[in-house]
């Protein structure tokens, strides 16, 4: 059904996926697992035609997705994103009915078939009860079920789910994954990116493990979740046992390698921040970033690596909530990387416990030098950043004054 052949994707000089091969057959729910920034979202984005492969190709039912129109592809593949920006007052029923978009011509009214599809989808996902409520007035779990209903209403042969359960409570997680199971039981295919390895093992027929943009293992949950695979992919010590209730593999992370345990917050936007995020993500740090305006380059990099960000609308002043969220993130981060030159980011950097300042221009002084009370390492080349952060984390007193190569 879904065939991914020798797929590679690069964003500028960041290689997001290299040489990935993957097949999802009808009747199969395949789980896509791997650490943040491994390339899971990128892979899903390529299958639904959002991203163009740099090399290789993706076919759905034999058709190359880059050659299909958005409309034709939307009849075959539906996507359930991680979260939806549904902040307006459409009734739930209308949001679900939007799933019929690829079937209606521009001038057609809502037909009876459309309505039947929407009703059936709402019944299956148990959202029919609140079909007339406004979408901005339902809870997170309910909202995600509405999005699943919309995808089912699209009547696709393949369903892509991008960490659909990431922000849900355990009850809703199980409900969403059960819906995906019912979907494939009808002879259709589903590919689901999922964080929780034990949950993935419990619901998926097969698992595909990606790390660093490469396919590490594929096969039954038991074979993929072998301890050495998990340890390699996540850089952790892992213990895999059999779950006492479900009998499926249960992964427990016992101890992480100290150098990858750290939370790094990246302040600032633009090209430098984008590269810093990519470098740190590849090195396996747990990263947060923000405040980034919509459309910022660094935001794209953060999304490509599945990184938590605080975002703001362009033009709008940064809201107090967003500022508080970032300040908190900066305070708790083991290390803060300052990649911006503006006042706001400098002020935020004052809260940092450890600070690394990145300047890509040779010999450029730090504007204002406002962070005197914090011991600061300076990096003038992105290549040195990971080493710089690690040095800072070790608490070594050495100051990094690496001259720029470029």
């Amino acid at each position, binding site marked *: 059904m879904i065939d991914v052949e020798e797929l590679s994707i690069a964003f500028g000089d960041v290689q997001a996926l290299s040489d990935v091969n993957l097949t999802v057959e009808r009747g199969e729910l395949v789980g896509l697992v791997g650490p943040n920034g491994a390339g899971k979202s990128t892979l899903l984005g390529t299958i639904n035609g959002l991203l163009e492969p740099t090399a290789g190709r993706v076919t759905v039912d034999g058709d190359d997705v880059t050659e299909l129109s*958005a409309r*034709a592809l939307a009849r075959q593949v539906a996507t359930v994103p991680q979260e939806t920006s549904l902040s307006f007052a*459409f009734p739930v029923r209308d949001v679900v009915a939007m799933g019929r978009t690829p079937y*209606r011509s*521009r001038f057609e009214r809502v037909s009876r078939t459309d309505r039947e599809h929407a009703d059936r989808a709402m019944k299956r996902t148990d959202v029919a009860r609140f079909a007339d409520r406004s979408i901005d007035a339902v809870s997170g779990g309910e909202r995600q079920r509405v999005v699943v209903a919309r995808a089912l209403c699209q009547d696709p042969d393949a369903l892509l789910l991008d960490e659909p359960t990431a922000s849900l409570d355990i009850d809703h997680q199980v409900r969403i994954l059960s819906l995906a199971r019912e979907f494939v039981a009808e002879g259709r295919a589903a590919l689901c990116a999922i964080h929780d390895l034990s949950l993935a093992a419990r619901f998926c027929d097969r698992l595909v493990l990606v790390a660093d943009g490469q396919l590490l293992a594929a096969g039954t949950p038991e074979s993929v979740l072998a301890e050495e695979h998990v340890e390699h992919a996540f850089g952790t010590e892992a213990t895999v046992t059999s779950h006492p209730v479900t009998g499926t593999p249960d992964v427990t992370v016992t101890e992480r390698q100290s150098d990858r345990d750290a939370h790094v917050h990246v302040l600032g936007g633009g090209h430098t921040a984008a590269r810093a995020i990519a470098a740190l993500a590849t090195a396996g740090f747990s990263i947060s970033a923000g405040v980034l305006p*919509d459309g910022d380059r660094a935001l794209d990099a953060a999304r490509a690596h599945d990184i938590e960000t605080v975002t703001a609308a362009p033009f709008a002043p940064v809201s107090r909530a967003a500022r508080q969220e970032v300040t908190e993130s900066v305070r708790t981060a083991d290390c803060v990387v300052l990649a911006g030159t503006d006042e706001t980011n400098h002020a935020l950097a004052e809260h940092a416990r450890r600070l690394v300042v990145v300047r890509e221009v040779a010999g450029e002084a730090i504007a204002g030098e406002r962070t005197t009370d914090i011991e600061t390492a300076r990096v003038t080349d992105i290549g040195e950043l990971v080493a710089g952060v690690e040095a800072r984390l070790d608490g070594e007193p050495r100051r990094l004054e690496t001259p720029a190569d470029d």
Partner: protein
Amino acid sequence: MDLRLPRITLAAVVGFALGASGTVMQGFFRNPMADPSIIGVSTGAATGAVAWIVLPIATPFALGLQGAAFAGALIAAFGVYLIATEGGRTPVATLLLAGVAVQTFLGAIISYLLINAGESLERVTYWLMGHLHNAGWDDVMTTLPVALVVFAVLVAYTRDLNVLLLGENEAHSLGIEVERSKRILLALSSVLTAGAVAVSGVIGFVGLVVPHVMRLLVGPDHRILLPTSALAGSVFLVAADTLARSGPAELPVGIVTAAVGAPFFLYLLRRREVHAL
């Protein structure tokens, strides 16, 4: 009657166009502050008109004042679009920023022309404030067909607009050719605004306030919101123009729409009725 009727009709047509394009722009940008002028259409029209009045050069193709305004509007909008487009993609945020920058730049040109306006300063100022006072049937005859045709096509795109509210990635996965729809919506609403601004000058606030008020009344579904806002724009502008000419000295209608519209908008804002799309 021969004076009033074309004027009332033109007010209705211009209000219709501004209401409709304001609705499209707010939906398109998913930004409650968007209005028809956001991508430089109005400033472009103003530049064209002011240049035509002030500069002693003959316009090519024997364009009249309105032709110059119309051309200026479209050139500005197309310029903003080109600046914001890279590799076939036009990110909405870039478009917004490019629009602001181009408006500022054109504002500088207008100011420069105004300094050198001399005797025509009064005429220029009057044009810039938005006016309907010397409307004739020929204005109606050029604007009305444009408004109706563009509106008809926009109605065909209301479902795309609804789906685009979900965000571009989701719209794509629901089968919308996102970049193509964006191009078409942008072009249509630019032509619609340009057609209105060319005959009436810059009449502010209609395109911003009317869609917000209508969204409160009929909800966010563009299939209903677009025609409602267009009609409400008509009614609002006809009423404002009636008010504008009922006083002892006639006012440019732009002053009335802004003076009435802005406080009303602030009232809605304080009541927290208007906060998002």
